[in-house]
């Protein structure tokens, strides 16, 4: 076997090995990275009758935030804080994610003190979602909402983070 033939054969071997790796690697990569290419959930889902939310109160509700897998169990649900501000009009509701804007822990509404408290690092928010104290960098995340025929609908959204606003 000549030297140039050896060189050719080693190149062929490396190329074939690389082809095998790509043949298996590309499908598995695509399979694993699929969540990146899926459109984020953006549908309007029913939360409840407007009359369920007395003016001036803030209530915990839960919705389905994405089409859930059959084995998702309780995690198919996402909790939201719904604040009824006005009897009607564009300022009627504020819908907040429960996630603290610091690191995502669930904030807790204190109905008497009218503040949200976070159990992880002590973030505090006012009733309108603005920061009242602690480490959170921005107000609570809000959801889009509409009222149709006396029913409150809320827009689905992915897990929020400070960057995507």
């Amino acid at each position, binding site marked *: 076997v000549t030297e140039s033939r050896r060189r050719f054969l080693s190149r062929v071997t490396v190329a074939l090995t690389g082809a095998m790796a790509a043949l298996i690697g590309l499908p598995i990569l695509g399979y694993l990275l699929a*969540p990146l290419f899926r459109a984020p959930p953006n549908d309007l889902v029913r939360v409840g009758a407007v009359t369920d939310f007395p003016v001036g109160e803030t209530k915990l509700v839960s919705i389905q935030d994405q089409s859930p897998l059959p084995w*998702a169990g309780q*995690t198919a649900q996402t909790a939201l804080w719904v604040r009824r501000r006005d009897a009607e009009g564009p300022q009627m509701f504020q819908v907040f994610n429960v996630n603290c804007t610091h690191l995502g822990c669930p904030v807790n509404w204190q109905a008497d*003190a009218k503040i949200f408290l976070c159990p992880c690092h002590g973030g505090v928010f006012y*009733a309108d979602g603005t920061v009242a104290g602690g*480490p959170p960098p921005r107000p609570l995340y809000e959801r889009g909402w509409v009222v149709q025929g006396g029913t409150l609908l809320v827009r689905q959204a*992915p897990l929020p983070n400070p960057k995507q606003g």
Partner: protein
Amino acid sequence: MSIVREVWRATARWVGGVASWLGERLELEDSVVAVLVHPVPRELERPIGWFYVFGSATLAVFVVQVVTGVGLAMTYVPAPNSAYDSLQFISRDATLGAVVRGIHYFGAGAMVVLVLVHMTQVFLFGAFKFPREANWLSGSLLLLATLAMAFTGQLLRWDQDAFWAVVVAAEQAARAPVIGGWLATLVVAGANVGGATLTRFYATHVFLIPAAVFGLIGIHLYLVVKRGISEPPVPGEPVDPASYRRRYREMLSRGIPFWPDAAWRDAAISAAIVVVIVVLAAVIGAPPLGKPADPTVVVADPRPDWYFLGYFALLAVIPPATEAVVIIGLPLFAFVFLFLVPIIWPDGERHWSRRPVAIAAVALPFIAYAALTVAGIESPWVPRLQGAALPASVTAGLDARASPGAQLFLTESCWACHQIDGSGGRKGPDLSHVASRLTRDQIGARIANGGGGMPAFAGSLSAQDLDDLSAFLATRR
């Protein structure tokens, strides 16, 4: 008697024959046997040899984790609607399930501790220097893998702590520059924590990281044997790459075989640690599960396992403005520093008494992390949401204004962050003697306007309530 002896001898001959046949057919003489009896420095015969056992002990506990992990995987169901119940079954009903889960849990803690102890010993003995830099690098990757196993493992409990830990992990990943959003999406495997999240963490915990660990252990042990166990450092005998390997070879010519001259110490310590793990598991059992993971239950108090509490505390005590740097930058800096250690200091003095900076580089992070862990256990920054009450000594004898004020102190969540006579949260200042610092008007203004991390309550308290609350606090001299 003689018949028994004859049978015994025949059996021994037969076993010996099978063993030597297998050894010969499997070529063990050149592989396993050669590795076991490879020469190590003679100094390891002396008591200093006890410092050289932690790598083996870590490996022993890793084997324990593999064995118990396989056992747990036979029963555990990695789906959000069943994971919690299957763990309850393992912990309560499965025969010896609580013990197996307990061993896996205490084994995980032992892995984290032993990897760090092993690294500390290697670092202080200067054993990472030439020609063993790659031993250190593969070891650093094994530390990363161990921490990743610890984190993904505690998520599999799928209780409230686990669920919110996934959310917090995704939020932290999201802070990374440029790729943050993608990382967060990959951590939860979708838009939100859901059905796809747990199966991915499970596969990562039982296949992906262990595969990497097996490979890295292979490289690590290969290098330990090929480059030799480092001799105990002597002050004034620096590493000189030009002559080190020749001197080391000469030293090994007077060495002792690893098996059994040094190996017995590894076996003794490894056995002691495994016994401690099994006893802890048998006596204490598996760690209790929290409430099942449920995103709609917001009354949660998420905490990581003890080895991550220090990091949890760090995120609470640093100034918010530094978070972008600390969340991504600090872990990155720590690991980049680890990887650079043998590249920056490949030669020179090995003995710790000649490397004061090395001692500081070990002591300061350990002290800092211990302090942060204590802070994480106490979590004084967390508002207390349950059990609001004031001692009778505080509420006794209050007048008509102060008495409703004391009630407001509880209902308006003042108590969640402020202590009076030892009762209440510790996020804000202790108010036991607030009236000795502030007048009644100043107290009222502070409550109304907030400031310094305190919310303003002017919007939620009536003038009457504010006055009552001030009247109550004015009694605290």
